[in-house]
Each structure stands twice: as structure tokens, then as C-alpha cells.
């Protein structure tokens, strides 16, 4: 694969009263594994089901019930690891994280603290053409999701819905390689993009399929470089963790607000206390959730109900061989194969479905033109009507047909827009529509010449003006187009007008 060259972005700098500060950010993203059943039970993972309808005995922690690993969830975690170019641990193990909460029936979450299934990987975070940050992934582990407590249905009681209990999550932990709020959001965007390409998480942040815990600290310029050289965290500031962020916008706001809070403390001669905080978007502030002292003692220990998880290298190799083309590779290929700009390639590969749609339009046709039409006309129109590519009224075949008619010179760009409109609202085969409705471009120079001559003859005053000011030739072109109902080939009209006017 041809690599696109890139430079790292500049770290975000916040000027304080005592000088400049830089940010150091690490993310823990919880991504719900796309699977039909839960991590350790056969219950369905379907979102939006009747409360407590997707609950197996083991999910409800009935006495004597035991977890059995869902092999597909393991496969998804391995696939995700491979997609992030990570080390796959052929032996991993599950631990219990113990704490009491009504939506945690077992009284513990089965997770992988000591031996995660995926080790070191990386994510190239795009910050614009030619600018990207390579963020290291420390680990990915599999764990169970908790259920949902509902506190607002009754003034005296709380309710618990166990449908989500035991659904598989991947916790994807980055190194503190992220240097600003925009980078943090871009990291989540890129991770989400890769997961969606891989089909291992639907990335739906509104439904909670992806949530992020954000670790933020601040340091002086130069300190971070010392950390990078030595991997010694003492060069960095004390971090705070902002829990459960589920929108890119809030992630950015929360990081900015939290960094400024820490800077204000430090410049005031106070200390940043390591703690867990929550972001309140209404008040635009982070609030302490619990301090390090109040932090739960989770009493992790190896889950005795499960043997160590051992997988075969051959199985990992099979999964690797079945990986789809990933965003970075696809983007490079779009630039080289279709001759489009890196920016267009980024837009088209942002989502795997969009990229596939584009390729259906572009295959065997003018790629650059196809890119233009997909991005400008189709995406523009979809966005205007708030629709997804999946329910686009214009299919890839139809849009391909339009692109083909333009390439052949059968219709002009302007007519093509009218045609697109017809296909969007009425449907139909573009080529047939052009024939039936007489939209075909007039390229017969004789017919155009006759028309040009007629208009010149009828407008001698304009002819004189145009001879003094050649820009006025456009007026004649416009008249010809008007007279031919827009079907005359604009290039031919331009040339003939210029010749007849002797320009």
C-alpha cells in the first residue's frame, strides 16, 4: 500500500497567567461488540426490546448459573485488534471486578484486567490533508456491560432493566498520545470508522454503543517530549478521568473545560487531585464524581468459572485473511485509482457504506466525475433531507447512469442536474429519461451555427459592444442556450460564437 505522507498536528496550547500549558489526553472507549447474543449467554442483544425480555438465567445471576464464552464475541475482538494492527494474545483470561449495584446482578463484572485479549496497536488519526497523529493503543479487553437502572418512573422506587446486562463490550484503551480536544474527537471518529468498517461495533453513540472515558492532564511545553523519550509518567501532570462521554462535541468541550480547570488550580498554587469527574454540558463544567480515596476497591481476581481463553494462531490468521479493506488503505487507493484529491477521498471513505456506494457509481466510469457527483449532488441532497445513504432515492446504478451520460457528452452538467432531480423525485432509468424527454445535448454544429447567426443578425448593437468588450460574448452564448432549451453543447456554442463574432 502506498502511504500518504503526513506530519503530526501541533499540540493545543492554552496560555495561562504564568505561561503556556499543553494538554495530554488518553481515551478509554467502550465499544459494544456487534453480536446477536451476549458475551456469556445466549440472550439476544437486540436494542430497544421490552425491558427484561432479553435475560438468560446467568444474566440475572440466578444461583448456580455459569458463564460460557461466546466465541463470536472473541472473534470480533480479535478482528478489531487486527484492524488496529495490534498484537493478539493467544492466551488471555477473565477477571471479576467486584462492586454492588442493582443493575449488576452478579455483584461483579467479568472483565480482563490482567491478561487482555489484544495488546499494543495503533490508530492513525487524521487531522486534515497531510496532517495526522499516530496514537498508540495500549490494549483491548472484553468485558460485560451492566444493565440499566431507571430512577424516574416512580417517586419511591427504582427499576432495573437487565436487557443490556452481559452484552459484550470491548474496552479500547489508548496511550496518552492525544494532544488536544479536536484530536480526541478525531480519534473517536477514526476509531468508530474502523470499527464500522470491520463490522465489530455499530458505533451508534446515541444508543450507547460507543462511550468514552477521557483522561486529561496538563503540562508545560517540553514535558511531554520528556515523557515520550522515557515513557516516565512523572513528567506529566496528575490526570482526571471524565466518565461516560457519548458525543464528539461534549468530548471536546469537556476536555477544554477540564484542562482550564486544572490550569487555574495549578496557577493558583493548588494541586490537581486524581479523581473521576462528570461533565455537565448545561453548566459547562466538570464535577467530581469520586476521589481516589473514595474510589471503589474492585477486588479484581481471576474468574474461577472460566478457564483461560486460548485461541489458535491459525484461527487468528483466518480472521486476518478475511479483514475488509480499511479506511487508510481505501483512501490511498481512491487517490491513486480515481485521481481524486485526498480531501475527496477522505469524504468518500469516511463511512464504509458511502465508499461502497461510490465505488458502484465509479466502476467503469470517470472516477473523478463520479466523486464529484457523489459528494456534491448526492451527499448534499441527502444531508439537506437528513437521509442516510441506505435510503437514498437515487441508487448507485442510477447515479452511475447519469455520470455516464455526462461523460459521453449526451447531456451537459446543467441538464444532468435536472435529470438528477427527476430521478430523485420520480425514479427511472437516466438514459431512457433523456431519450423520452428530449434532454439530449445538441452537438450538431450546423444547427448551433444557424442559431448563432440568427441571434447575431437580430442584435447588431450587441455585436458592436461585444467587439469592444469580448466578455459580452457570454450574452450570445446565453441566448443560444435559451433558444435551444439548454440542450446545446456549451463548449461548441462558445467556440462558434467566438468565431462568428471574430473574437
Amino acid at each position, binding site marked *: 500500500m502506498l502511504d500518504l505522507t503526513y506530519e503530526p498536528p501541533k499540540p493545543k496550547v492554552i496560555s495561562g497567567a504564568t505561561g503556556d500549558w499543553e494538554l495530554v489526553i488518553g481515551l478509554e472507549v467502550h465499544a459494544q461488540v456487534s453480536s446477536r447474543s451476549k458475551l456469556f449467554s445466549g440472550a439476544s442483544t437486540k436494542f430497544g426490546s421490552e425491558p427484561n425480555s432479553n435475560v438468560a438465567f446467568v444474566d440475572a445471576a*440466578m444461583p448456580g448459573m*455459569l458463564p*460460557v464464552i461466546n466465541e463470536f464475541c472473541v472473534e470480533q475482538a480479535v478482528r478489531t485488534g487486527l484492524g488496529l494492527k495490534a498484537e493478539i494474545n493467544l492466551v488471555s483470561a477473565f477477571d471479576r471486578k467486584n462492586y454492588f449495584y*442493582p443493575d449488576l446482578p452478579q455483584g461483579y463484572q467479568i472483565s480482563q484486567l490482567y491478561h487482555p485479549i489484544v495488546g499494543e496497536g495503533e490508530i492513525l488519526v487524521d487531522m486534515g490533508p497531510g496532517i495526522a497523529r499516530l496514537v498508540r493503543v495500549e490494549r483491548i479487553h472484553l468485558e460485560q456491560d451492566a444493565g440499566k437502572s431507571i430512577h424516574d418512573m416512580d417517586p419511591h422506587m427504582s427499576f432495573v432493566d437487565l436487557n443490556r446486562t452481559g452484552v459484550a463490550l470491548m474496552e479500547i484503551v489508548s496511550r496518552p498520545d492525544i494532544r488536544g480536544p479536536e484530536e480526541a474527537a478525531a480519534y473517536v471518529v477514526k476509531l468508530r470508522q474502523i470499527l464500522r468498517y470491520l463490522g465489530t461495533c455499530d458505533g451508534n453513540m446515541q444508543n450507547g454503543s460507543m462511550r468514552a472515558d477521557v483522561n486529561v492532564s496538563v503540562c508545560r511545553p517540553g514535558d511531554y517530549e520528556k515523557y515520550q523519550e522515557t515513557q516516565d509518567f512523572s513528567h506529566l501532570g496528575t490526570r482526571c478521568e471524565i466518565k461516560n462521554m457519548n458525543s464528539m462535541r461534549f468530548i471536546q468541550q469537556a476536555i477544554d473545560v477540564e484542562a482550564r480547570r486544572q490550569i487555574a488550580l495549578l496557577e493558583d498554587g493548588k494541586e490537581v487531585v486524581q479523581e473521576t469527574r462528570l461533565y455537565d454540558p448545561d453548566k459547562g463544567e466538570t464535577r467530581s464524581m469520586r476521589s481516589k480515596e473514595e474510589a471503589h476497591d474492585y477486588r479484581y481476581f481471576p474468574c474461577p468459572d472460566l478457564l483461560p481463553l486460548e485461541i489458535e494462531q491459525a484461527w487468528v490468521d483466518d480472521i486476518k485473511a478475511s479483514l475488509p479493506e480499511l479506511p487508510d488503505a481505501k483512501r490511498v487507493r481512491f487517490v491513486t485509482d480515481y485521481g481524486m484529491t485526498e480531501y475527496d477521498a477522505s469524504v468518500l471513505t469516511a463511512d464504509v457504506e458511502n465508499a461502497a456506494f461510490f465505488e458502484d457509481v465509479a466502476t467503469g466510469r470517470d472516477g473523478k466525475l463520479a466523486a464529484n457527483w457523489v459528494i456534491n449532488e448526492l451527499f448534499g441532497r441527502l444531508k439537506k433531507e437528513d437521509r442516510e445513504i441506505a435510503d437514498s432515492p437515487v441508487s448507485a446504478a442510477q447515479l452511475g447512469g447519469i455520470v455516464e451520460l455526462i461523460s459521453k457528452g449526451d447531456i451537459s452538467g446543467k441538464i444532468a442536474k435536472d435529470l438528477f432531480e427527476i430521478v430523485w423525485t420520480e425514479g427511472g432509468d437516466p438514459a431512457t429519461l433523456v431519450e423520452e424527454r428530449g434532454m439530449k445535448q445538441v452537438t450538431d454544429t450546423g444547427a448551433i451555427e444557424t442559431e448563432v447567426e440568427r441571434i447575431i443578425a437580430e442584435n447588431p448593437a450587441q455585436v458592436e459592444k461585444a467587439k469592444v468588450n469580448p466578455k459580452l460574448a457570454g450574452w450570445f452564448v446565453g441566448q443560444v442556450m435559451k433558444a435551444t432549451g439548454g440542450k446545446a453543447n456549451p463548449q461548441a456554442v462558445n467556440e462558434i460564437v467566438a468565431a462568428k463574432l471574430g473574437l
Partner: protein
Amino acid sequence: MSNLNALTIADAREKLRAGEITSVELTEACLKAADAAKALNAVVHPTPEIALEQAKAADARLSSGNAPDMCGIPLGIKDLFCTKGVASQAASGILKGFKPEYESTVTTQLFDAGAVMIGKLNMDEFAMGSSNETSVYGNVINPWRRGNDETALTPGGSSGGSASAVAADLCLAATGTDTGGSIRQPAAFVGITGLKPTYGRVSRWGVVAFASSLDQAGPMAKSVRDCAIMLKAMSGHDPKDSTSAELAVPDFEAMLTGNIKGQTIGIPKEYRMDGMPEEIEDLWAEGRAMLEDAGAKIVDISLPHTKYALPAYYVVAPAEASSNLARYDGVRYGHRAKLSHGDGVTEMYEKTRAEGFGAEVKRRVMIGTYVLSAGFYDAYYNRARRVRALIKKDFEDVFAAGVDAILTPATPSSAFALGQEFDDPVQMYLNDVFTVTVNLAGLPGIAVPAGLDMQGLPLGLQLIGKPWEEGALMNVAQALEDRAGFVSKPSKWW
């Protein structure tokens, strides 16, 4: 025919197959005996309707021929097993009224083989105890007494109800579970045979968990042969239990030739404890002589880490228990405390667990929570895990050196009086001193009655075998049983 309830499984099987008796007759005899034995407090949830229905079905199978070995055999089921629609409380107040919607794998297999359940049996709460004094149902009484002394004795624990019920002929055999000796110690205290299989031989699915890495269900019966017959029906790979082994189940009974000529039996010197009663010493020596007489070669061996087993056990087991018992929170099933105005979820947990759990369970949950806490984890839990690995290696080394089985006492004493050790948990924990190593190492172990002490109480010997070789182990036990000729029964006073 009288005293059908006193039959062994093997004898009853022949009579049932020969049509000499019916399962209904056999079951009725057991139900009648159980009904008359309320003083023992062994059966806590009698299930006569289920029993008779199962017995009738078993008779139909028997008369059509080809009935499995366990067909028509009345059993008692320890309350730790979840039985569908039947109270399954692990002898705890916190599971008051709990009737599962599912049937444990072990009971499913037994019932599929035609076995009959006469009722659920008493036990220590969550299998935590060595005297059956921690049960919410009250103490189980040992059918044995010290001669004419009427002092109530413990049947041992935690499978005290199973031990008492089998010894008193309330059923032909019973299921037990063994986390640190809970099958073998009570079997020894009541003069019956109890086997703890290799960890992973019997499915744990549907058995209320105490310490998951140690828990293993097994048979408690009137002979080695009966244990072999019943173990076969209980065993096998269960995809619902990830720790269950994918191994074929051998015909254990066919391996009981009683011929152990040329086998090597190890006598571990570390099991000779300070202050061990002379009677136990003597019994052990007798056992050694019996096996020698059967043609075995006796060797002295060393299991050097034995002395660390009990402390390691009392770290690992409570650690796992503290986590396993977190689910009893009053949210979904079982007991929930009545709450006062203004109480929140924390008060619900606190009050529910304070009311629902007994003192021993609370003690172990607290010990377990402590040893897993930040700052103590390495000093206790991790160290205990390392000890566990060393203990396992001790056994691997002697087996690799050619030892086929290991002979030890089953208990440091005969059955003691109820109440005698109850207020001294450390003294109580010492009951497990000979048995916990087997659980820590995941090995099979069997207690065989081998004699009576001076007070007329049964004493047992323990044999420890190689992993997955229960058949060979039971064959050594058979040789011991043949020579010990233990036929005593408690005099009926109840």
C-alpha cells in the same frame, strides 16, 4: 420384604431388575423411614409426590427392560443443588422460598437415569461449615451415638444431611458437594463412603456456588461400588460449565476388581499431625496393613507443602465465596429486608444481607473481601494461589515417582458433640486439615469407613488418586473396604 431402605444401590438394582421389588416399594420404604426420622433433621424439603411419580416411571422403564443402573433408586439431594420447582435454598435464609426454574445438570442426569428424589437434604449454609451447625434449618443430628450417651453428635459438614440420611437408611445414597472436605469428612463421621471426583468431572451448573475453583459434587453412599455406580450417572462433560472436562466417562464399576497387587500406595509423613488421637494413628496403620495385605507396595512419601494447605484454603475459598455471594442482594429473588422510610439501596443491601446470612457466611464473606482488598491481595490471595500451585506440584511429583494412590486419615477425630467446636472457628477449620489439599490440587479423594473408635463411633480413611483416575482410586478403596469389613450401623434411637 423388610428394610428395603437399607439396601445398597447394587443390591437394589439386582432386585429391581429381577422384579423382586418395585421402585415404588423401595421409595415408600425410604419415605416412611425419612418421615420417622425427623429427629435427625436431615431431610428439610421432603418431596414424596415427586418421588412416587418418579418411582412409577422407573418401574415402567424397569419392566420394559434396559433400565439404567440408577433406575428406581431413591436418593436424597443436598439443598445446594437447584431442583426445578422445588425449594433450593443452600440452607440459607437469604434464599428463603427460592424455587428455581431450572434443574441442575447433576440432578438432570440422575433423573434421566431413572433415579428418584425423596427430598432435599440439610447442609451447612452455602456449604460453609464442618458440623452442619450453620444451617438455617437447624443442626443435623448424627444417627450415631457414643454408646448409651445421648449427647447429640455432629454428622460433620457441610454435607451433613446427606451423611445422616444415608447412614440412617432414609435413602440409598445422596448427592454431596465437597469444597474442602464436605463429602469426605461427614462420610467418615457417619460410617459411609463418600467420593470427591476430580475437579471438572462433574458439572457445577445449577449447583449453588461456594468456591467455584474448589467445588465439586460427588456421591455419598453405602459402599465403594455404589459410589462408582452413582458417579457414572453424575459425571460427564457439560457445555454449560466451562470448567467441566471434555472427557469420556469410564465404566467405574467395571474397574472394581479389588485387585491392587503391585500398586504403590504412598503414606505422606506430613499428615501425621501433632496431637492427633492415637486411635486415628492406629486406624491409619491398620489401613496401611490392609493394603499391604492386598498386595500393594507401601512407601513413605513427602508432600512438603501440606502445612500451608489449610491457611491457603481459608484464603482462596472465602475470596471466591465473597464474590460468589454478592448476587444475594435482595434485588431479584430470595429474601429482601423490610425497609424503613428513607432507606436507599445501600440500606437494602445491608439489611437484607445482615438478616439473610448466618454468622459463618458473614465471617467468610468478610475474610474473602479482606484478602482481595487493594494492598492485601498479594500478601494473601496471590500467596495462597502460589501455595496452591506448590501443593499441586507436591502431588504431581509423587505420582510421577510411581505412587498410584495416597492413604491418609479422613478426619483428625471421630464425630464430636454438636456445639463443642461451634464457638471456635479455627478449631472447626482444622477438621478439614486432611481433606483440603485434595480440593486445592483438584484431585479425586474418597473416604472409606474403616473402623470404630473406643466410643463406638465410625472412623474413616482417605485415599487420594491421580486426576481423572477415579476408577483406579475406587478400586484401591474397594480393596480397603473388602479388608476393613465395616458393617456396623447406628442403633436406631430416633
